[in-house]
């Protein structure tokens, strides 16, 4: 009899991987998150910390860990809805997250710009309104790789979402109202831009083969976090050249001016060692210094991954308001981000 050959991922059953991951998170970090019975929704454990505050939720397909459940906790998210891998969650689950996150001050949803997510969160919002819960939202579309026009779905939401969550989380924790949070999100959004480069694609467990294939010496600029196609393939370049290309695209958007202040996030896609990410950040910061630009907040690591994809993304947030930097540095206590 032929033995079953398991796909080389640490899992039991590809169809149960999300459920088992959600359980694993709740079992490993009960001080941060708990699972809503029978749902793929994780909620902040420290309930007292949410009293009288606007609830902040997000969600979407999984496979981007630690995003987003890793950011549940004091000073950041109230609840996260986990869809199947790379696939939007359903409205009933989102509704449950809204209901649990509502502490009388309404709920704000951070949605990444994918048509499935938008529609499902929209349905949930309509249902919540019937429950008399005040729900507002922002659609994050920081990925500048995609042309933004009426002829496309628009830009995708990628790693910049984490900075949006950090800032709004600080505001919510400080007692901002739902309208204030909505206004803040709208203010921040146009200043938040990300661009990535992939060295290899992710393999979705149920699919069992990578989303695309790059030659041994090829990279692809602008790939999305679900292996969506990028804008150019070329021969692998040294780190400094990769940084140059990504910064050039960001400069097209921002028009770097000496004395501009930015938050800078280098995000590993999943399989790229921290060593490489730090080398890349060094090149980015040196080149930003050449532009005369100030980097006031810098972070390096796996914040918004794409399963086992290799590569990095670079996010810049132009700090138009001093308050935003304070909000980035505001105390936070989650699985994946802690600041005293």
């Amino acid at each position: 009899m032929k033995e079953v050959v398991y796909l080389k991922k640490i899992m039991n059953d590809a169809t149960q991987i999300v459920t088992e991951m959600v359980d694993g998170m709740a079992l490993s970090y009960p001080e941060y998150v708990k699972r809503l019975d029978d749902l793929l929704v994780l909620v902040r454990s420290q309930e007292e910390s949410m009293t009288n505050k606007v609830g902040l939720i997000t969600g979407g397909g999984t496979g981007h860990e630690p995003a987003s459940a890793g950011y549940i906790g004091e000073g950041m998210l109230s609840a996260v809805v986990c869809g199947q891998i790379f696939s939007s969650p359903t409205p009933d689950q989102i509704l449950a997250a809204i209901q649990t996150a509502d502490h009388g001050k309404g709920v704000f949803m951070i949605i990444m710009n994918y048509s499935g997510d938008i529609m499902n969160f929209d349905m949930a919002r309509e249902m919540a309104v019937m429950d008399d819960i005040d729900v507002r939202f922002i659609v994050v579309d920081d990925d500048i790789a995609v042309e933004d026009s009426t002829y496309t779905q628009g830009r995708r939401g990628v790693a910049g979402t984490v900075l949006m969550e950090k800032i709004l989380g600080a505001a919510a924790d400080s007692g901002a109202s739902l309208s204030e949070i909505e206004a803040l999100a709208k203010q921040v959004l146009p200043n938040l831009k990300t661009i990535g480069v992939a060295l290899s694609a992710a393999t979705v467990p149920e699919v069992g083969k990578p989303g695309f294939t790059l030659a041994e010496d090829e990279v692809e600029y602008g790939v999305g976090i679900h292996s969506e196609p990028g804008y150019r393939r070329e021969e692998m370049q040294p780190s400094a050249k990769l940084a140059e290309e990504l910064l050039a695209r960001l400069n097209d958007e921002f028009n770097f001016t000496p004395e501009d202040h930015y938050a800078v996030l280098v995000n590993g896609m999943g399989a790229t060692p921290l060593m490489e990410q730090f080398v890349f950040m060094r090149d980015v910061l040196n080149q930003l210094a050449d532009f005369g630009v100030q980097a006031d907040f810098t972070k390096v690591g796996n914040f918004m991954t794409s399963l086992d994809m290799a590569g990095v993304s670079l996010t810049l947030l132009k700090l138009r308001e001093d308050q935003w930097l304070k909000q980035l540095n505001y105390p936070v206590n989650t699985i994946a981000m802690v600041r005293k």
Partner: protein
Amino acid sequence: MLTVETIAQWMNGWTKDIKANKGYLNELDSVIGDGDHGSNLARGADAIEAALLTAPDDVPSTFKAVAMAIVSKVGGASGALYGTAFLEMYKESQRTTDMVKILDKAMKAMEKRGDSKPGEKTMLDVWEPVVKAAKRGNVTPIVIDDAVESTKDMKATKGRASYVGEKSIGHLDPGAVSSGYLFHNLFEVGLVG
């Protein structure tokens, strides 16, 4: 006539087609999207069949049962769109038993949900011509197939397929194909013609 039974017959035909073509729908989606349209709908198909086993009392609750099965099990763009369509059928069927009116309302709700119009290479490119034909009473299998085929030469401007842009031209839209199954079965049950 619109009854609990004809809806169940319609749905069972659709879910059978979806499950038989799960791999094909995934394949279509993997060319221009993320390869899960068949899997998404197959989950929904199982849920619809389960929901209809305990036969609802009346037409609106039948539509509602289908809607809730889709809404809670499919996910992704198609889950929201088909879910919205059947939720709207549930609402509209409380006012009328005219299937054409019901379909028209459902289509409008989908357009609103998807912020989208026919011509963007989506399932709406099947809904629009079929509903139009239904109004005139001349739906045929050919009308449906032509509508599905028409998406082949379109460029996607909504949904994941819009990321591949020009490269989407020359391939059928997976949602259009699954909506084709939906209307073929509706025609066979005799609810449109």
